[in-house]
């Protein structure tokens, strides 16, 4: 069924009798050419592009819970391609370009909204660093602008310009950055994949991997063994757990990241803003809630919930930057498990097991990467060679000293 305004009107006038399930609930088959483990944004996108762009079939996505129930369903919905390093920027720019055509591509309104993102500047050294970054972005074909203090003031005159501990000195802006309705991304890919014949199998947790003679034969699950020609794992915070079934230790730690939403408010802030002098970034959803976040809690965790100090820390950042939000109320906090890698950048690579592929280490930047991650992982799965924008995302970069460390923090996952 194709969605359109006309279809909505016709259905409305005929009692909404014609709507169909957005996806089937098939029972798992005995064998697939491709089994994608993880029904989050990345896994669903991978299956979608495998079928659509790489013309593969006999594909299943298996998900331990419900589709889109992981980090794609609990994040701050930001898209951008304002990365610095050669290993990253082409990939994220590819992703942003995919976002720009996504809704028409998968016929689902994910509310891709390019209302712009600014990273505030508070010191001269930060301006130097953002100038370097902005130039790298443009060299990579992305858009970037450097704003001075007055340009920022013109955009958001109610920011704390006059009584700030860390004065605002300008901003790096990417106008093509913005937000996307996160759940709709998962559902759009799921629906698109389902329409292309992909089996989406929910409530199906991987409990083991069958590997013989160095080759993967399939996965053991709570719904029985599922044979596979190739297994692609895209399970974010559960990466270490799943890959341990293949005997692997990863350059990844799982950490909890909290995010927050306020009560619904009339339009207050249009675009996305990050405040580096505090740990705070914010946007406003189309529904009116301020959506904001800050640092990870900082300790290994699979608990999907966080603690009070980070909530306070984030609110402090918010109040320092926007003193007029004091009377807005925080409505809800949530916590997702981030696959924090050792250099803050992801891995999309083959493993030492023939037929087993891995996609993870997204830290807390995985949402914006969803389309490109899916595309590049599908590319790797279908063709056995990395996509040109993802060729740096290899396991062996740590052994070879080719880290992609945007923050320059080294092998300390909780600082990325």
């Amino acid at each position, binding site marked *: 069924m194709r969605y359109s*305004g006309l279809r*909505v009107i016709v259905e*409305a*006038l005929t009692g*909404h009798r014609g709507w*169909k*399930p*957005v*996806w089937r609930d098939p029972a798992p088959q005995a064998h697939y050419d491709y089994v994608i483990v993880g029904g989050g944004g990345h896994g669903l996108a991978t299956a979608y592009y495998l079928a659509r762009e790489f013309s593969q079939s006999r594909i299943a996505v298996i998900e331990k819970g*419900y589709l*889109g129930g992981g980090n794609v*369903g609990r994040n701050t919905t930001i898209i951008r391609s304002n990365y610095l390093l*050669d290993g990253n920027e*082409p990939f994220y720019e590819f992703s942003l370009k995919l976002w720009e055509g996504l809704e*028409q591509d998968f*016929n689902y*309104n*994910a509310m891709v*909204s*390019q209302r712009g993102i600014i990273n505030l500047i508070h*010191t001269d*050294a930060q301006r*130097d*660093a953002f*100038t*370097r970054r902005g130039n*790298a972005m443009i*060299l990579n*074909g992305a858009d970037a602008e*450097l704003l001075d203090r007055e340009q920022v003031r013109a955009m958001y005159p109610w920011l704390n310009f006059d009584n*700030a*501990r*860390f004065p605002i000195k300008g901003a790096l802006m990417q106008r093509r950055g913005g937000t996307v*309705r996160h759940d709709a991304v998962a559902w759009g890919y799921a629906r698109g994949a389902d329409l292309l014949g992909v089996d989406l199998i929910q409530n199906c947790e991987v409990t083991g991997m069958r590997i013989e003679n160095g080759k993967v034969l399939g996965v053991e699950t709570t719904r029985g063994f599922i044979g596979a020609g190739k297994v692609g794992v895209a399970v974010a915070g559960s990466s270490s757990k799943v890959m341990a079934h293949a005997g692997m230790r990863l350059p990844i730690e799982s950490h909890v990241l909290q995010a927050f939403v306020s*009560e*619904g*408010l*009339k*339009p207050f802030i249009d675009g996305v803003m990050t405040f580096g002098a505090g740990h705070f970034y914010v946007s406003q959803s*189309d529904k009116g809630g301020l959506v904001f976040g800050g640092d990870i809690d900082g300790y290994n965790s699979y*608990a999907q*919930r966080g603690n*009070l100090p980070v909530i*306070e820390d984030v609110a402090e950042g918010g*109040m*320092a930057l926007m*003193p*007029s*939000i004091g*009377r807005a*109320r*925080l409505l809800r*906090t949530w916590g997702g498990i981030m696959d924090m890698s050792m250099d803050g950048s992801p891995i999309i690579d083959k493993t030492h097991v023939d037929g087993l592929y891995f996609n993870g280490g997204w830290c807390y930047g995985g949402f914006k990467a969803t389309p490109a991650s899916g595309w590049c992982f599908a590319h790797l799965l279908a063709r056995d060679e990395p996509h040109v924008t993802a060729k740096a995302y290899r396991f062996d970069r740590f*052994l*070879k*000293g080719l*880290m992609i*460390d945007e923050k320059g923090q*080294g*092998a300390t996952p909780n600082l990325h």
Partner: protein
Amino acid sequence: MSQKNRISGGQIDRSKVLTFTFDGKTYSGHPGDTLASALLANGVRLMGRSFKYHRPRGPISAGSEEPNALVQLRSGARQEPNTRATVAELFDGLDATSQNRWPSLAFDALAINDRLNTFFTAGFYYKTFMWPASFWEKVYEPIIRRAAGLGSLTREEDPDEYDKGFLHCDLLVIGAGPAGLMAALAAGRAGARVILADEDFRFGGRLNAETLSVGGRTGAEWADSVIAELAALPNVRLMLRTTVIGAFDHGIYGAVERVSDHLAVPLEGKPRQTLWRIYSKRALLAGGATERPIAFENNDRPGIMMAGALRTYANRFGVTVGERVAVFTNNEDGLQTARDLVEKGVDVVAVIDARPDGPLLPGIRHLKGAEVVDAAGRLGLKSITIRQANGRTETVEVSALGVSGGWNPNVNISSHHRSKPVWSEALQAFVPGEGGPQGLSAAGAAAGQMSTHAALEGGQKAAIAALAELGISAKADTVPEAEDRPLSITPKWYVNAGKGRAWIDPQNDVTVKDIKLAHKENFTSVEHMKRYTTLGMATDQGKTGNVLGLAIMAGLTGQTIPETGTTIYRPPYTPVAMGTLAGRSRGKEFKPFRLTPSHKWAEEQGAVFVEVGMWLRTQWLPKPGEKHWRESVDREVLATRKSVGICDVTTLGKIDIQGTDAGAFLDKVYCNTFSTLAVGRCRYGLMLREDGMVFDDGTTARMGENEYVMTTTTANAVTVFRHLEYCRQVLWPDMDVQLISTTEAWAQFSVAGPNARKLLEKIVDQDISDSAFPYMAAGNITIGGLRARLFRISFSGELAYEIAVPTRYGDALIRRLVEEGKAFDAVVYGTEALGVMRVEKGHVAGNELNGQSTALNMGLGKMVSKMKDSIGMVLSQREGMNQPDGYRLVGVKPVDPAATLTAGSHFLEKDAKPVIENDGGWLTSKVYSPHLGCDIALGYLKAGDQKIGRRMRAVNLLAKTETEVEIVSPHFFDPEGERLRG
């Protein structure tokens, strides 16, 4: 307007009259009222509009679960959006306005959405607005955004203060209803440290809303007596207006005390609200239960509310919501509303009881097996349509309807650690399950103990059990007599009749139809249903509607309710003001200031300061007449290079390292060698991370055989110290080495320039001639007998020293140096001049020490000794970090001396296109060198060491500028270092 719906009784102070306004109209009420109760007393049922359809709405509750009656409270900078009128305490002069409507509450243009509701079904927006692509940002979204949201925020700074506090207790009791009061009493009498917190402004919980007796008194009187006893116990802290917002790890609870929200403005020196972090050994959830509705067509009319709320308004506030009232219930508790209202003289026209049998209420029209199928009255309920058991329908005029679909125990906090609540068939509700926060138990209605007696008994038992785990024995006193009737509920989730809409989540306008659509489209998992329909995502987080929604979904899928499960309960229990969470950390107090020892002196001179991490450092010191910062900075640089300059360098990290293994320890943490350093000498040290990247640099001096003084960069002072402790304790635990951070113990000044020695000679007691104190010497000296340290080190490239005195003498030393320096036209220079001189000398600093650079990148590769094991030595040898065409530190000069450079510009070859394949690197730091009379810069250039002398372009694509530059050695000034040895 008179309070036409005010009836007798209630816990309000009728001797005082408070006046207030709502949407500009003046009303009166009494102390003890909420805004909602006072408005209802005045006959106002319409208080808000719903989010999507802009339906007219009145309160459905008398508590914090309220989804409808949200108002903008106060005005000006204190305007707060989305305040629940049902919990806003009335004060004299309160002003409130309705929100999410235009032009007025009674007439709202966007109510057109309601007419178009058949288009605006759950998730309709995912299926349209896609063409043309650019229209989303340009057309559709702006319209949606303007229409969305509830109340509005001012753009003014919140004028109120907020505070934070920390409390400790043996037992935290959450909720002061019958269970909580009995628990606090048992624990308080046993001498335990107790905190009793309640979100209300009266202790007693439901007892305040009921007419039932406890121990022969009214519930409220009994609660008062308990509170009086608890108040007299020094080990009990009573916290009124305090909402426990969440359970965190290890017995830590967050709580918000609304200190001043019941006042027009906070009292002088008092915060508006306080965020408490409560450290409890044990906690008891006694937060009661929340009544839930039964969905039927047009069940959102103003005047339709929870049966229990109707009773609360009558019993506690002396208010009837209407003159003619009906009750629709599926359980025994709903009947109590009818009884109480009749008792108060209110006309109860019918009790519509969904249960087919059981005894009838005497003297009231009590319809068994009946249901309400519709309601009329757009701006306020006028009538309901009843369908009796025999199928006959009739329309009855009423102005208020109380609905009870049962009670949901407030399990939220018990599920904050993601444990699943369990389903109780008897209660038709979820009760706390296993695996909740450690040390937390539940009692009273929160635990499914629904009668007053059960709550009293349960509270006492739970407290005794919790204290027993702590080794405190509390005794079981007689539980006061109270009602103990069963709830006797028959499940009834929605009334299946007609084609109209029946609301489940009133604020977000989620109706039974939306649930059915979600089911049809296979959004059947409870999380999918929530996300697709937005059920439970409103400001009440589904406190009244969620169970209804999932029960209806369960009915559609054929699963049981427990199989369907709940969504996740997350903090906060009720929404919390951002200001409260931030406390005092805002404005200039966002982070503390660290001030240098010369700060006061510099302030007197009119210095310009700059934030450097937490530090405030002198950036430059303008002289009278200097209009541009460059004038000051150029002068400071030139004067230093010409004669002598003084700079406060206290912010550099200083670490004393002592012990017989101190030298060996430094050999481990620095990539170069320090054990061979002679006593009384300094050496530049380079510290790597274990991954081989440069971590930090600085000068370390050997002050004695087993005593070193390390300096770090300002930025890394804390992390280097942490790292050294790690190396000492974790990696080499048997090394005899001790560390102490002395960054704040010593005030340290750089004295640099050709006349540096002459200036210092006037101050220090020792011989510091070049032979006695050569380049890179270090030692303990005295200044007029006062102990001090002197290091002959130079960042500026001049003959230079750093002199340190105990911090308390720092102010005196700067004044002395300035005074003695007059003879040499000495200047004091700030961080800008410091930066200029270090770039002239090609020293790396923050912009080059970016955590992404190797020693090789910096031109310091040879410093990494392979003869010894040091942190980072092995991994610095990885191939990717040793590529011959990797980045190397270079100097950059514009070919045209008048041209300007910009840090962050990228290197491109002469005719290269601006694409990433041609990217040569970037300019890290740029300054204007008054010495050279042009801009100069440092940069990381690919294979830069092989490109000295080459001409390239420094391109700043952000500003669309570029400058032709010459790649030079980074040592612009005195490359042989003759001056610093002078």
